């Protein structure tokens, strides 16, 4: 098996297309020995990053694209998701866990990404998210 996988992909703003990419990345993570718990975290965070890019970044405009770049090794997964939107200030998102926002149906994506990944950071204008997931199984096998 190769020691690292690197891919650059551009997809239209489409939930089924995003799902296909998500499934490809998850399949690769399993091949590199990530636990099911890590795979769940990866799936959830990818889902949030991609759906945010489609819904909020590209406003579900099918003529706009999403660019993905990812590196997968046995040690960690690095993912960049970029949309064609004008960006946003991630520090300006209301806390979805506060009592006044608990019944709001939106606004939990960033919270979930931050909870399930080891690193989540945005570029200056907020239209590219970079996430890292470390493999908790790495080094456990001889």
């Amino acid at each position, binding site marked *: 098996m190769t020691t690292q996988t690197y891919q650059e992909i551009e997809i239209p703003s489409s939930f089924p297309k995003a799902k296909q990419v998500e499934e490809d990345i998850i399949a690769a993570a399993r091949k590199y020995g990530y636990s099911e718990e890590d795979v*769940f975290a990866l799936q959830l965070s990818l*889902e949030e990053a991609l*759906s945010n890019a*489609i819904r909020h970044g590209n406003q579900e405009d099918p003529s706009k694209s999403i660019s993905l770049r990812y590196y997968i090794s046995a040690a960690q997964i690095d993912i960049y998701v970029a949309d064609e939107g004008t960006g946003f200030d991630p520090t300006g998102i209301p806390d979805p866990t506060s009592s006044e926002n608990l019944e709001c149906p939106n606004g939990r994506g960033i919270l979930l990404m931050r909870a399930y990944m080891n690193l989540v950071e945005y570029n200056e204008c907020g239209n590219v998210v970079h996430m890292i997931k470390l493999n908790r199984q790495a080094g456990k096998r001889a």
Partner: protein
Amino acid sequence: MSELTIDIAEHDAGVIVRLAGSADMTAAQDLRHQLERLPTEETNRIVLDLSALDFISSMGLGVLIQFHRQCQEGTGGLRLANPQESIVKVLETTQLDQLFDIYTSLDEALSP
């Protein structure tokens, strides 16, 4: 990752909606449409059986929150039954375990 299936069954104590598979971005719209059609104004209780639900994203959670509101506006309440550990963790992370009534078994959720 399996596609979401939604089975709806009448029960003496209310309506049981069994969700199986992934409540993800591709399934959220269908889930919303199916739940919106449920007769929440005439049903005493609706139980979402989550025992076979293995994934939920924020879009899926958003649908459940909207359905929770719909049930509150009706005559009965919404109960979640038997979520898997990974789903419980998502509910706890988002603190939606404070919003939903969550039961560890279907029998418990169906009891008065």
